[in-house]
């Protein structure tokens, strides 16, 4: 039980930390004027690695992403929440269709195109489509994908969210 709450707290701290990094540190490392959207990258990574049956966990992630996107940017809260809800729904639906029967259900070959499409949808709905931004976000997403898969997912993939019994 404590470990479940620890997971929630760690997730909140991760989003907070990434939001601060995005708005301060990475401002100095712009790529043709674009800065990575770390909140979106982190949100998508969490959603991608969460099983479809963990409904409440998915809701938690897009609520958290919506809150931090609102606080650390100039997007309206309702709009950011709806955007993340759309992205989460589309991603999980696509994953359901694409899911393979191999041992590894979360390969990079699924992650990258799903992320790319989700990013296009997100940027288009925000009115901020930029090629430089997409390239930058894709690069960061790949790094975070491997870090998450190697160090976090492999250790906890047998656990399920038991908070909302």
């Amino acid at each position: 039980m404590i470990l479940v709450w620890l997971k929630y707290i760690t997730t909140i701290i991760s989003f907070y930390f990434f939001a601060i990094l995005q708005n301060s540190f990475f401002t100095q490392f712009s790529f043709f004027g674009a800065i990575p959207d770390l909140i979106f990258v982190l949100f998508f990574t969490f959603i991608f690695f969460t099983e479809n049956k963990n409904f409440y966990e998915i809701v938690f992630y897009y609520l958290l992403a919506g809150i931090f996107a609102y606080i650390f940017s100039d997007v309206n809260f309702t709009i950011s929440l709806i955007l993340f809800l759309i992205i989460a729904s589309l991603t999980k639906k696509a994953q359901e269709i694409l899911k393979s029967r191999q041992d590894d259900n979360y390969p990079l070959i699924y992650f990258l195109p799903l992320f790319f499409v989700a990013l296009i949808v997100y940027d288009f709905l925000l009115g901020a489509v930029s090629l430089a931004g997409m390239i930058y976000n894709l690069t960061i997403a790949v790094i975070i994908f491997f870090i998450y898969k190697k160090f976090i997912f492999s250790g906890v993939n047998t656990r399920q969210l038991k908070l909302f019994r």
Partner: protein
Amino acid sequence: MNTLSENFSINKKNNNILKYFGVIITLIFFIIIFNFFGSQIKNSFYVVSSPVEKVFWSAGESSSGFLSSFFWAGAIAKENDNLKGENEKLIAQVVLLQAVNNANQAQSDISLGIQNADLKLLMAGIIGLAGQDVVSVNKGSDDGIEEGMPVISQQNVVLGKINKVYKNFSSVMLISNKNSVVNVKVRQNKGGEIMPDTETEIDGVIRGSGNSGVSLDLIPVDKNINEGDILITSSLEEVFPKNLLIGKITKIQKNDQKPFQQAEIQPFFDLKGLDNLFVITNYKR
């Protein structure tokens, strides 16, 4: 058995409905909270996180400077040579203009710098980004900041204007923001010499194009503008005082079929290395 399985599927359906209903109620609750108390929540977060953001901002500056010396050594050396050349031309121009000024005090329209010495400036520190081409600063309504106030750098370069004010911090919409439009004048740059005001001033507007990009528009196609020409704020501008530096023209897009020509602008401001900016608190047109 059939009755049992039917009951099971009905129960499952009811559970799903309850589940979705619960989530919708939770989301509506959060939407109401953030719509009514959003400003206070944002302000609290910024008060807590601004020291951390400042540390990361400085760390980013140092790392960026260190890395760019490796990757951009050639470009930096070239830029240094260009700047030395420009500096020498400017020194010569200053010497000449000082002579002109001494000779005829009444006709001294020599400077591209701000001519409004009685403007009140409030220095604000940059905390970090607050969106696409929006920065947050550590001064808010408690410090006398109001929406619409112009913001400049130490070198009298236009940065943007205050677009949202909270209790302890504000957000500045940069001129590169897609919602930004500024009236400007084009000052011709001939061989490194900035020409003074002439009777044939060229007026236009600059629009933000996002990702620190700015473009010039509404220049009549029959007007002659050149790469390297300097842009300053116009007297037609309502937000900013006139004669503030904006940027220079880098690439002209001219089509004789259209009534206006456009150009890409390199703004003089650069967020990298910028720690403080100045809010003009008493400029009212």
